[in-house]
């Protein structure tokens, strides 16, 4: 079901995170990230799945109780396949990404974007973060929060997550990456476009 979060006037900070793969591929989240993700700052969590054990759900819920999760291909529990969340003026679609072929293909994701009819599409699976401004809105592909091994890329994965700061029609995307033990933050500003004229 669709859920409305945050009135359009107030600012809402949303953690977008996924592909932790604990304990399958990584023992834990990097301590630097754990330090950042203390309870109290984040209102909502959108999780693209592959946590993979239940104990990680408990961890996410300790940050904030408002957690929306979708099914990853390695999750040891069941979640919805996809989810749509309304925050501020935004409709955000959430799906893990192993359902589209080729994995992580921008065109395939754009198709999904149109199907869901959302302003922001958040996916994961590739373990390489990529943020595109497309005709459909923002296409956010999350990296792995733990920098977990992935068969899809032979590059050493960089641990990353995204914070979405939504203020009405304004969205700011903060990309947190862990490089050489240091947290690096990039930022992308986005304004919601006027709705497309009806066909």
């Amino acid at each position, binding site marked *: 079901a669709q859920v409305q979060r945050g009135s359009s006037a107030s600012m809402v900070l949303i953690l977008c995170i996924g592909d932790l793969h604990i304990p399958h591929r990584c023992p834990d989240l990097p301590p630097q990230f754990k330090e950042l993700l203390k309870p109290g700052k984040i209102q909502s969590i959108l999780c693209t799945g592959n946590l993979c054990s239940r104990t990680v759900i408990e961890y996410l819920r300790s940050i904030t109780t408002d957690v929306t999760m979708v099914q990853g*291909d390695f999750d040891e529990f069941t979640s919805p396949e996809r989810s749509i969340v309304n925050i501020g003026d935004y409709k955000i679609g959430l799906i893990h990404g*192993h359902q589209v072929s080729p994995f992580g293909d921008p065109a395939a994701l*754009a198709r999904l974007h149109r199907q869901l009819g959302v302003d922001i599409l958040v996916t994961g699976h590739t373990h390489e973060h990529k943020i595109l401004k497309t005709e459909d809105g923002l296409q956010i592909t999350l990296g792995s929060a733990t920098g977990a091994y992935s068969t899809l890329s032979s590059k050493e994965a960089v641990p990353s997550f995204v914070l979405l700061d939504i203020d009405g029609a304004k969205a700011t995307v903060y990309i947190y990456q862990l490089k050489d033990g240091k947290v690096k933050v990039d930022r992308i500003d986005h304004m919601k476009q006027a709705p497309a004229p009806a066909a």
Partner: protein
Amino acid sequence: MEGSAFGSEAEQERILGDAKLAIKRAAYSLHKSMEEDNLREALRFSAAMLGELRTSQLSPHKYYELYMLVFDMLVQLESFFGDERGKGRSYSELYELVQHAGNVLPRLYLMVAVGSLYIKSKEAAAKDILKDLVELCKGVQHPTRGLFLRAYLCQRSRTVLPDTGSAYEGPGGTVTDALDFLLSNFVEMNKLWVRMQHQGSVRDKEKREKERQQLADLVGKNLTYISQLDGLGYELYAGQVLPRVMEQVVSCRDDIAQQYLFQAVIQVFPDSFHLGTLDTLLGALAEMQPGVKVHTVVASLMDRLARYAAADPAVMVQLLDMRAFERFRDAIARIISAQPTMPAADAIEMYVALMNFTGNVHPNIVENVNQVLAAAHGALAPRGLAGDARAERALVVLLTLPITKYDVVTGLGLTEYPLLMGLLRQRTHKELATRIVHTVLDTGTKITSVDKAAMLFRFIQPLVHDEPIAGNEVSAGAISIDDLDDEDVAGEQVLVARLLHTLAADQADVQFQLLVTAQAQLVLGGPRRLRHTLPALGFCGLRLVRRLAMAPAGGKATEGEGVSCESVLQWLLGVGLALAEVPEGTGLGLRLLLAGAHAASEEAQLELLAYEFFEQALLLYEEGVADQRHRVTALHSIIGTLHGCHVFGPDNWDALVQNCGGYASRLLKRLDQCQAVCSCARLSWQEAASSTAPGLQPPVRDASKVLKGLGRALKIAAAAKQQAAAAARGVVPYGAGTTVAAATAPSTSYVWLYVEVLNQYLAYLTLGLEGCGPAVVQHVLDLVAAEVAAPGPGGPMDAETARFWGATLQHIRLQAAAPAGDVQARFALIKL
């Protein structure tokens, strides 16, 4: 009088009250006579006052009250005596005079009072008077009376001892005389104190013993004064003091006295003395009564010496030279075997102290820690802990010390550790094992050798499997996995799985051995545990494959390195299949096989092995995945993985693609069929491989097969339409109303399928696929537009589909309106 019971509490209060009154009266008269300077009267009244101390009817506690009252008066009497000399009376005369008192107890008190003044005046040799007094006091053998009399003697003589450097040395005697005096008084006092236990009735023995304990310091004062003698050197201490004190301590055979005095000796005499007399002390400890808490005595001795050593490096060397650790270790063993009834917790506390001792004194000798563990195991294993909660707690304390004191890798060298751990009840054992795992994880420790890995698994054994530890009997209260619910199993095994990532050898072949070692242990844990641990084990294997593939040898086994990508992948295949066998492991097993397939293809370029992985994954899909939703997502994973594989020659490729196509069209729901068939079509248009390895094929690019696939997808949409028409003829309208489509699920309308396939065509138009130009796309667009426009069998199109259709048209418009280019040109030709 010994053995007689005291009266009731009320009766004693009355006797005490009467005695106090009598003392106050006598004291009043005494006061008066002193003011009048009447010595004779003063002596008479003081004898009367002191006579009240002759009672045997008061418990030591009440007697003490009486004594304190008298003591205050004695202080005044002493100063009165002190003034007598000025009046021409010598102390020898006074000393003589007080002996005329009729009763022995008042007489002795007065003699003591005068005696110290006598010594002070130097009219007589200190040693003679002291010897006289200490001997005469033997005349009072009643425990309470005698003890307090001698306490007074001890207190009064303190300042007039012929100690080295004191004013009373020389003609007055030597430090030996001072020692003789204090030691004799000590021995006599202790005897009286010990005999005090026989006073009163058996009924209130406990209360009496408590009272007796409160008098300990009266006896201990003698030892304190001995320790304060300036003339007391080590020789004198070791030759005279300690042997006589210890002889008394051992021979008195009394729990309270032994406990107190042993502690007192350790506390009051300097640590440097203890270093030299360690054997005497330890030897005496083994001879203590069973009721004595020897463990606290040994522990405090070790603690003191450790602190002493910490302040002085020379002492540390000395302790090492004298093999103090070994002596303590052996003494503890002797004590335990001499006291078979000693509680296990007490025995363990001694080992805790020994562990602390070696940790502080010899922090670098890790072998000592192992020896403590071995000794503790040797002492405890025969009797076991038998569920004794206090012993359990003590053992956890003992076992926690090495983990906190040393790094984990060093800790893993402690071969005796797991054996001792095995004595804990399984619940406690598990808690400790959990703590060890957390320590390993939190410290970022890497396990680099097979020995260490094997050891680690021994340390955390109860988390891994239910087999008993070799060398131990089955531990008490063993819980098997059958007693745990799924949540508990998951909690424990997630921890074990996390631990697997700490296995990290420098050499690839050793790394492989580490994984095989881990696997052998995990398998013992049974299917319910394996479900949680095998995925992690599998991915450790995949990381090793990548490491080998990136190595100069390119994943082939080289001389000396017995491991190759192929051997690891073969092993991984087994892990994946084993995972698929465990309850609820099918989905994860299938995914692990797919990951293996991708690695076999892209990283190892092993076509047949990659095929084998796919074959097994497909078999699992066919036979093991029953749930429709899981079938859909599993098939997407299979197709998506295959799309990224470039190792296959045409025959193998076609076989796999055809199988996928078959499964796609056999999915239950039309929507799922349609989407899966579209994904299969995409298999014939591959991206380039990310590596340029020689074993890889160029990407598959077959436009006609893609279009054939899309045509099949259109047929599925048409079939959905017919199905909807059939349903509409029935009672329930198909796809009617907007309430059917939940926002998060795709629309159930067949029109949705048409729009979806149109989007596929548009994607290929963007790609510039041969045979999928504007004309072909226009044809499909018109077809779909007609379906959208026509009132369908289920009524008007639902809102979700309408929105999707609108978004699709908008996409075409935006692409056509984009800056000029190939893609824009193709889209510009589409008419809406």
